[in-house]
């Protein structure tokens, strides 16, 4: 699925004295099955852009096409619908829910779909096995190390088999060795046909051979785009 952005703008606190345009006109396309990385200074709008692509918020103006579907003016309920089936998210702070087991955390995104429980468990276990976490399935997530938590977060992102994986500063909480391993996992995901969008400050990420394309942002616009 191609992602096409046309003249996207996003304002915060619109109409108030502290109005702030975080994205000020971005037009960019992302091809399927490629790894793209957004980089840029803090506050340049990377996260904001990703969250609009990932259907977490709506742009103030402009148009986003996902495949042949316009998602920029969808109501929240339909955005969520699209998001559930299309996107998997990996967050900087892994955002696992403490108190729940690894397995339960992974299955969270699948609950609203109402699939049979056996099917849910089966796909969660398959993912755990793939990421070498089978032994931890029933542990509470508080017991996991940083690298393991990261992999659980990846499993959770993949449970609904999304076509596009979005990772916002995925390596910020990892050491360089784990970051390197993470890029290996990203490579595998790409091999399996996923489109991947990353943001990072970490040169281990944007300079990695795995990344096909680096887009640099500043103050809400695209500065350079090296394909």
């Amino acid at each position, binding site marked *: 699925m191609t992602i096409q952005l046309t003249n996207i703008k996003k304002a915060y606190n619109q109409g108030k004295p502290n109005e702030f345009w975080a994205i000020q006109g971005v037009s960019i396309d992302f091809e399927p099955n490629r790894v793209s990385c957004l980089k840029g200074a803090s506050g340049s709008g990377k996260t904001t852009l990703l969250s609009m692509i990932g259907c*977490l918020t709506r742009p103030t103006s402009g148009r986003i096409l996902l495949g042949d579907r316009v998602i920029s003016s969808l109501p929240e309920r339909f955005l*969520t619908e699209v998001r559930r089936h299309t996107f998997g998210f990996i967050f900087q702070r892994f955002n696992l829910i403490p108190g729940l087991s690894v397995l339960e955390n992974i299955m969270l995104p699948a609950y*609203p779909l*109402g699939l*049979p429980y056996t099917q849910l468990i089966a796909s969660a276990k398959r993912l755990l096995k793939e990421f070498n976490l089978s032994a931890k399935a029933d542990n509470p997530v508080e017991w996991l190390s940083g690298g393991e938590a990261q992999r659980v977060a990846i499993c959770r992102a993949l449970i609904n088999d999304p076509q596009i994986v979005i990772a*916002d500063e995925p390596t910020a909480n990892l050491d360089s060795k784990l970051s390197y391993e993470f890029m290996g996992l990203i490579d595998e995901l790409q091999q399996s046909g996923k489109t991947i969008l990353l943001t990072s400050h970490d040169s281990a990420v944007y300079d990695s051979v795995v990344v096909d394309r680096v887009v640099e942002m500043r103050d809400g616009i695209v500065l350079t785009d090296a394909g």
Partner: protein
Amino acid sequence: MLYFLRKQKYLIDYTLSSLLRRKGKSLGLLAVYSMIVFMLASVTLFSHALRHEAGLMLQASPEIILQRMEAGRHAMIPADYLQRIGQLRGVKQKAGRLWGYYYDPAVKANYTIMTGGQSETPLTNIIIGTGIARARGLDVGDYLTLRSQNGEAFSFQISALLDDKSELVSADLLLMSPQAFRRVFNIPEGLYTDLVLSVRNPREVIKVVEKLTQLLPDTRPILRDEVLRTYDSVFSWRQGILFVLLTGSILAFVIFAWDKASGLSAEERREIGILKAVGWETADVMRMKFWEGMIISLTAFLIGYLAAYAHVFYASASLFEPVLKGWAVLYPQFRLTPFVDGLQLATLFFFSVLPYIVATIIPIWRTSIADPDAVMR
């Protein structure tokens, strides 16, 4: 449909686990909630049972009581009125009754004195209710002395205690023979306190009453059905007063529920954010919260109601009796017959669950519309 049901099941599972994860908070809410249900349910169960009991008791009483009025006040009725009534169509039985109140300064209480059938009680024997027995520390075989109207003292031997099943009505009851009654209260032969008539067919009561007022213009008939009606409204009225008194606590509960539902910890907020970010919709979160409310309400309702049931029917409503029955020295101890009905349950529901639901709608909505992209920052 299947998908919908399974989804609800997942939401319920999730809610249960998150309630268990926050045991302290959930238990606190549950305790307060159950307390409210308990208080309301106790009041309703108790007053309904009393009304029920009173109804049963009146069922056995005669259809018509005839009192003579003198200058607008109740006066003794001459026995020849029985003859003057004569043979009325539909009247099965008619008789004169003797009864009255006796103030006992020793325990500062009023006894209700009634006469047994003509031959039942020997002149010097009495039967007393358990309330009197307790107050005076008496038992079968003991003697009780009553002072008569003109200062004489009469001693009576207690031949039996009244069955304590009917203690609600009989606690302060004292039965003696008609002759003894006339002596103690100095009432000449040929006068009764009132007359009672039993009518075979309830439809004929009105006709009988019409004839009575023509025959005996100085009397006032009291109908059993009318007494029942008064009882009905008096009991629901008293219960209503208690409910009004409880409104304060219901309001406090509403505020408490509102506060609990809106004052989420940072951790809970974050959890909702995560759920939304990984693909839960606002409506899903709201539904999850809806189930949470249902689970809490149902549990609290059950706990509160069962506790109230036990309180009223096994512990004789020890907390409420003084309010509903008035303060009395000869306090009855009794077991009420359990009595439950749908209207009662529905009313309870409206006074406890509905306020909870209404109080939580807006806080739940506020939590549920959390920005899904908030967790990315």
